[in-house]
């Protein structure tokens, strides 16, 4: 594979990893960039041989169904808070999203 191909594969990987919010080590990038390219090349037959896309099917095409709109018992905070990465005074603690460090 030429260097130009390798560079394009790496750029594509970095763009997708950023979209997926995945931090990759340089060694992982070096392994994953050609792997992703190889997998997509193997699957290219799908794009080449399948005609116009149709809407995604539901496997059994079930009718849309909703449950009755009545209140149901729910979990109490003390039941689910222990599963949170961080809590404070009965609330989830999340990193600062506005005005935090860049």
């Amino acid at each position, binding site marked *: 594979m030429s260097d130009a191909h390798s560079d394009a594969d790496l750029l594509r990987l970095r763009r*997708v990893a950023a979209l*997926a919010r995945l*931090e990759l080590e340089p060694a992982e990038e070096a392994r994953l960039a050609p792997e992703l390219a190889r*997998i997509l090349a193997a699957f290219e037959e799908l794009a080449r041989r399948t005609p116009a896309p149709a809407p995604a099917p539901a*496997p*059994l095409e079930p009718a*849309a169904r909703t449950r009755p709109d009545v209140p149901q018992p729910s979990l109490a905070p003390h039941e689910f808070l222990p599963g949170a990465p961080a809590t404070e005074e009965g609330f989830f603690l999340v*990193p600062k999203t506005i005005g935090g460090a860049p």
Partner: protein
Amino acid sequence: MTSAAELAQAHTRGTCSVRATLEETLARIAAADVELGAVAALASESARRRADVLDAARAHGFPCGPLFGVPVLLKSNLCYAGHESNCGSRLLAGYRSPFTATVVERLLDAGAVVVGHAHMDEFAMGSSGENSAYRATRNPWDPTRVPGGSSSGCAAAVAARLVPLALGSDTGGSVRQPAALCGISGFKPSYGRLSRHGLVAFGSSLDQVGPLATSVADLELVLEALSGLDVRDATTLGGPPITRGTRSTLTGLRVGVPREYLGAGLDARVRAVIERALAELVAAGAVCVPLELPGTELAIATYYVVATAEAASNLARFDGVRYGARVEGGGSLAAMMGATRGRGLGAEVKRRILLGTFVLSHGFEEAWYGRASAHRAALAAEFRSAFEQVDVIVGPTTPAPAFRLGEKHADPLAMYLADALTVPASLAGLPAVSVPAGFVREGEHDLPVGLQWIGPAGGDAELLAAARLFQNRTEHHRAVPPACTNA
């Protein structure tokens, strides 16, 4: 070990206590699982408490359910309140669900005793069990080989007769493929047949909960106990409760045999086993009908586009905020999420998230996800047309018997091809069951081969009835791995 049905009957009659069965089960696991690596975590204390309650209830004349006192192992992506359901991932280490999955609640309502969680490929992504962040499970028939995946621990534990029953999940073959490689029976119901509430999502248009057992009769027992509408899962099918299929003979059964399922890439020894199974069906009065399902050729590509797209979306929640062991990553929210996911997720999960993100990304979605969806619709139409001519479709569950640990681990495409024969039924939402069909000899070991039966959508009960009638004419499912003959 006796079957789940026989155990439940023995407990109900009082021939043996639930507690005694549980203690035997825990002892077997303690003795055999160090090498096998099937069980991720035991729920010994809660299981003992429950066993005592069940024994007391029976003694006081309370009714006993169809799975009364049967020890069951859960795949680690099924939630059981208070117990760790880590999905085989480092990112979810220590995660204890505050609620119980509907299928697990129904198992308990039927009298089952949950003994613990089983190892699995991380987030159900894998065909060998090697993608667990904790340990790779071994195949009881040959410990140098994989048990299949992703329900690797469930299949190995049932095959090694540690437990009579396990509950796994099947997105593209994750119950059927390991069942085939371990010589047991494993069932993926029709899409919507069993509730997914409390199953950690991978590919939402494909995921199904599925049981693994030593016989089809036990799978039928589980289907009856677990199926039905669940208001907490809008995709569950309504209708009357599922009861055992009524078919009583294989005479006249129209068995479709797709040319593509016996084509290139199939191990010659596996082909010979499948041809013997087909001959057995004909001897029983079934009629084999040659079929063509040309869409099969692109099924792997279609599946890995659809499933990874859905996985990329579903796994976005494991970000260190909503779920997952948080890793601080330089101050910003995006950096924290990137670090949490980058360090918490394993190689295969990252690979699939990247693939899924790519096929959904701007400028590529129509060419990849759109076309995969179109091909999926065409494949489902091929199956509908085929089921106008036949009652069931049969073929090998896997192209080859169990491969060696490490043999395909570095080659993702080779690993994906292990699913070639199971993904078509998943894409079409059809019920499919793998039953033992025989063995191939590999060095000093016999390796199991599975026969896959596929039925029309919603035809779960009749499919299992036909597979049971076949199984009752064979002895393959009674064979026990050499190291487990004393179990």
